[in-house]
């Protein structure tokens, strides 16, 4: 049972009965900027989008915008967005976990861990136009790596089917920030695996695989799934990298949404709001999965 909250007032500050003094709690000032930003740039725009999704061009309540989501083009955009997000999240999560296990549980030098963690902090935030340019410069048709592979090893990746402006090209580009993000987010969970657990399993006769199967991976599983859902949401909402890399050649939801609200021939703000609402619902689902699963993980780690 939780103890009742303690008053921080001293005896001399006790107000007279019947005249409670309301004092400004200064701690709120510290979080005020965050709250103001969240209200102005997250909550209010979200509310606006939700309401705009149900308003027609004539200003009347309508479900046409929502119904408009269920066209072949938009459903295909959602499907390819979900595929790219799921693939980059899945590969990023598995690769990130493998790297994290190697640098934390493996017998690699400590300096390598610190170098990779520092790099991950930078790379996980490296997105948008610079990232797109970096990949075009290296893996584009005339990119450095493409040319080197062709000149030195006679490997033509484009003739082999690769295209930086394709599904796999975008997925590969997303992996540049997905893998480091996974490393940063799963590292505390891997750190939390106590050495005594594997030692206890060994003295009980378990092989390394049996330890990971029955203990290690089940303990990491909630953290892994939770981080996977965050990676999915991260990729699903990404626009700048995709737009800078593929322009409009890859029809993913953020690019479609961009086209609807930027005033070109496709302009339909109501449909744009409905597209955004769909994205909010999908990313909210991913985040709810994360919260539920991480709460379960925290229960184990008490």
């Amino acid at each position, binding site marked *: 049972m939780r103890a009742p909250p303690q008053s921080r007032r001293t005896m001399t500050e006790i107000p007279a009965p019947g005249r409670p003094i309301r004092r400004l709690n200064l701690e709120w000032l510290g979080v005020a900027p965050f709250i103001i930003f969240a209200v102005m740039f997250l909550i209010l725009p979200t509310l606006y989008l939700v309401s705009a999704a149900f308003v027609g061009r004539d200003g009347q309540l309508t479900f046409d915008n929502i119904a408009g989501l269920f066209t072949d083009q938009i459903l295909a955009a959602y499907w390819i967005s979900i595929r790219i997000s799921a693939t980059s999240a899945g590969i990023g999560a598995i690769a990130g976990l493998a790297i994290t296990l190697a640098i934390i549980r493996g017998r690699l030098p400590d300096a390598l861990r610190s170098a990779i963690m520092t790099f991950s902090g930078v790379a996980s935030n490296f997105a948008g136009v610079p990232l797109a340019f970096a990949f075009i410069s290296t893996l584009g048709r005339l990119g450095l790596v493409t040319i080197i592979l062709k000149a030195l090893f006679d490997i033509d990746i484009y003739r082999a089917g690769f295209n930086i402006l394709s599904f796999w090209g975008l997925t590969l580009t997303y992996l540049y920030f997905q893998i480091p993000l996974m490393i940063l987010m799963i590292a505390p969970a891997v750190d939390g695996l106590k050495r005594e657990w594997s030692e206890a*399993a060994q003295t009980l*006769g378990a092989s390394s695989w049996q330890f990971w199967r029955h*203990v290690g991976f089940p303990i990491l599983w909630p953290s892994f799934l939770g981080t996977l859902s965050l990676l999915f949401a991260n990729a699903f909402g990404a626009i700048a990298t995709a737009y800078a890399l593929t322009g409009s050649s890859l029809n993913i939801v953020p690019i479609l949404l961009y086209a609807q609200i930027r005033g070109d021939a496709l302009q339909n703000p109501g449909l744009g709001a409905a597209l955004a609402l769909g994205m909010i619902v999908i990313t909210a689902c991913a985040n709810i999965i994360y919260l539920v699963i991480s709460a379960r993980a925290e229960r184990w780690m008490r």
Partner: protein
Amino acid sequence: MSDEHFLRVENLTKTYGTTTVVKGVSFDFAKGEFISLLGPSGCGKTTILRMIAGFETPSRGSITVDGENITAIPPNQRRLGMVFQAYALFPNLNVGDNIAFGLKVAGIGRDERRTRVEEMLKLIGLPGYDKRFPYELSGGQQQRVALARAIAPRPRLLLLDEPLSALDAKIRVSLRQEIRAIQRELGITTVFVTHDQEEALSISDRIVVMNAGDIEQLGTPHDIYNRPATRFAATFVGQLNTLPARISDAAAGQANLGGRTITLPGLPSGIVNGAEIGLAIRPEMLSPVPRAESDISLDGTIHDVSFLGSVVRLRVDLQGTMVNVDTFNDQSAVPPSRGDAVAVHMASRDLMILPR
């Protein structure tokens, strides 16, 4: 291989870089013995335990259990049980699954596992707890489950790595008695690592007193306490007073203590007349009232009085030397006060000449 040499450690050495943390340690233990490795932090006791478990590789030496040299065998093939200081229960498994873990990985069938888990839960006094998770248990309960998990696969040797250190004082005492009772019931050879001398003295068949990577003394609790082999063993195990004395007649075994001539039992060879020596004596061997066996009495002043429950400890200034005098609590007597004059009585046979 006879039962007397069930666990044999020979010339065990562990070196990290230029630092040797275990220096050629050897010992033999019989089947069913409860042995404690006792010493301060950094003395090498945990390293020895971890080498027996297989988590550390010896730089030199060998470890034999029941005639089998296990020095190079991986930990999961040694058939040993281990209990850790921080319990190390698997948090994702309930109590039943934790206890059954060793049986499961050994391929034991579900029914047999269930029967064994029930046996173990009964043994540790937690029947009906099989569906609970570790986080739902107290520290003492978790450590009992860890013990049950370690002994469920019937290991040939049980290793206890300071299993009581994380528990509060009352639970420590009750759990150590339970561990000893279970160990006796199962007859399992047990190596217990602790830095707590009281724990070691209270539950061990034999104790290995360790210091700086080496064995100072190996013996029964009674021997270690009453006949310490080294100065370290004498000072580390139990409270000890040291009284300065001077050899007055080495041939007759006589020394001068506080202006009185006393005859010492078993004066070591090589001591010459006029040599300064330290005479050690346990606090409970000193008394403010004469006993039948007392043949020495020194005058002093009470410097402090500490009430420790069943024992009252007097800190007495004996002509410049501070000593502790332990007396049993007597609820009908008025405790002495600071500044009171007191005569401290002792028997010369209880004095130990501290080895150098």
